[in-house]
């Protein structure tokens, strides 16, 4: 069909001078990222609540197997926590370079972020076994594995995102708009690391205190 000609309209302003790329809470992707942080943080909170709910079904927590408590080991989880906290520094520097449109800085700090981020999933694998219980041993093992495993899925995704961004920045000329994506990637990384701190305390340190 032919659309009718638009009637003359009064213009109350012109937006041609407005920016087309912004950072942080002004940009759409930042809000989208925040939305997924809420969903994923809430999922982890629900699983943690269920971990405590199941506590009422056991006489001791962690439960005893052959008279021995299933307390988790602390060495690998603590090392990984430190590595994760340290990894926030290159993430921050990459975001800062992105906001200054400093492409050299972005490439450097993304590369360093990537190298550190590769270590974390490997440590996470040993961290799962540091629980000293299998997921199918009992409900305690199930809940602990699910908390650590669910967080591991966020971790793997963000590592992959960081590696992908790094690869693209090193092999291609990237549009300037991607600078905002680099900043959002760091924003998600902070979330992924910071949400782990209470989970680490609950799953690894908690059993030593509760028992």
């Amino acid at each position, binding site marked *: *069909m032919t*659309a*009718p000609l*638009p*009637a003359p*309209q*009064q*213009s*109350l*302003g*012109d*937006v*041609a001078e*407005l*920016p*087309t*790329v*912004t*950072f942080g809470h*002004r*940009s759409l992707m930042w*809000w*989208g990222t925040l*939305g*997924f942080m*809420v*969903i994923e943080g*809430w*999922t982890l909170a*629900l*699983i943690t609540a*269920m971990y405590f*709910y*199941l506590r009422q*079904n056991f006489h001791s927590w962690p*439960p005893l197997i052959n008279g021995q408590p299933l307390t988790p080991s602390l060495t690998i989880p603590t090392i990984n926590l430190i590595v994760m906290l340290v990894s926030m520094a290159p993430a921050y520097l990459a975001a800062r370079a992105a*906001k*200054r*449109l400093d492409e050299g800085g972005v490439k450097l700090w993304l590369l360093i972020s990537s190298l550190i981020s590769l270590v974390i999933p490997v440590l996470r694998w040993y961290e799962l076994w540091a629980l000293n219980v299998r*997921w*199918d*041993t*009992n*409900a*305690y*093992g*199930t*809940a602990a*594995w*699910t908390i650590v495993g*669910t967080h591991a899925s966020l971790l793997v995704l963000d590592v992959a*995102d960081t590696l*992908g961004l790094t690869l*693209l920045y090193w092999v*291609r*000329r990237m*549009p*300037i*708009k991607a*600078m905002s994506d680099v900043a959002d990637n760091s924003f998600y990384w902070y979330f992924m690391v910071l949400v782990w701190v209470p989970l680490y305390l609950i799953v690894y340190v908690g059993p030593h205190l509760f028992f």
Partner: protein
Amino acid sequence: MGPDAGWTSYPPLSGPAYSPGHRVDVWAQVVTFTEIAALVAAVNIIVTVFKMRAPGMSLNRIPLFVWSQLVVSFMIVFAMPAVATASTLQLAADRAVSTQWFNPAEGGDALLWQHIFWFFGHPEVYIIFLPGLGFITPIIETFTRRRVFGYTAIVLANITTGFFAFGLWVHHMFATPIPELGQSLFTAASMLIAIPTGVQIFCWLVTLFSGRPRLTAAMLFILGFFFTFVNGGLTGVMLASVTFDKQVHDTFFVVAHLHYVLLGGAIMPLFAAFYYWFPKVTGRLLSETLGKWNAWLFIIGVNVAFFPMHILGLNGMPRRIYTYLAETGWGPLNALVTLGAVIVVLSVALFVVNAAISWRAGRLASANPWDSYGLEWATPSPAPNYNFVNTPVVLGRHPLWDTGSPLPVITGLRSDRREVLITTTFDARPDHRHKHPRASIWPFVMALAMGITWIGSIFTPWAILVGLGITLLVMLGWGWASSQDIEVERVDTEDRIVEAA
């Protein structure tokens, strides 16, 4: 293939011991797949409402339908993770990799399923009918030519309903062993939620009485909503009482209640919305004569079908049975229920005929056939996919009634790429221009990868790992494709604006 453990899939029935095979896995993984889609859509709607409004549409000028969608989206964000967790991380995992969530022998807990399922399930009821409540305001305003009474009260009632909806789930579990204090709390909360809904109903009634309603088909459905939904709400308050609830637990009384609420609260407004917005979508009006028959038959049919169920339930007829003995005396009322169902079928058949005929040969609709006020009525019918040539500026809650047509606009968005205006969250002042991505095959490829992952995961947990790998590769491909799009942009680095590519 069909799931066979009921729509609530309670363990232990749905667990590995009593439901071997993959039937329940279909339920579990398709539920999660769907909820992930719902979550993505909810984030999309929240961001759109917060950042992409027409300039001038401050928070206190957002149409009430959009408010209800915003509240629903927030509810989805907090409700759907519960059912996705329950179905995939718990039920499917118990079945596929022997986790012990619901196995009491290893410290698991079958009742935990009911908690987490209903923590999703009860908000879901409100997720279903809050959009229905959102349809009502513009339809009443349009057909009474009155601005709604109590806009702010309705917005606050919407938000309050969204919060309270998360505090009611245990009333689905009154027949399980829960502490008395818990019973009292959830009884109180279940009664409390009637208040914000009541506030909205009173605001609409005041609006109706202050004008002279035009009884179009859409308006008849809204009047049907008042009659039917309020009855359903009242039985809801009755059911909130533990003693009464236990008396009618699992009887037809509950079936009557939920159909009054959902047919009255969601389906009748949905029909009204269909009549109201059909011309904007198709460019043609639905037949009003058939529409009025549709409305009257539906309202009468629903009440004939479901009112007798209250009495049947009080007489002890249980839910989920396919037959009963003649001596129970339930026969005559059940015959009446069947008659009501036939009337509903007739009504819906008329609706289908009406929609099919009107789609092809209905009366042509002008841009604003109802003389309404919303921005959508300023576009031609059917609305073009770009909506507006220039973005309109909003100066009040009822743009076309406040400023008349044509609406004032802002100019300066580029038309040689998909540029949209981003506005500030509270006051909707123009903030920056955003370039949407070009059309691309990659989102579809991503959807395929996700579909393969979830369908595969019905049969083997390894599909999750393989699917994750494919999905990550698709992510990289998508990033690679979109990085080709190099253009000069105006970058706001927070201390200056730089032109760069």
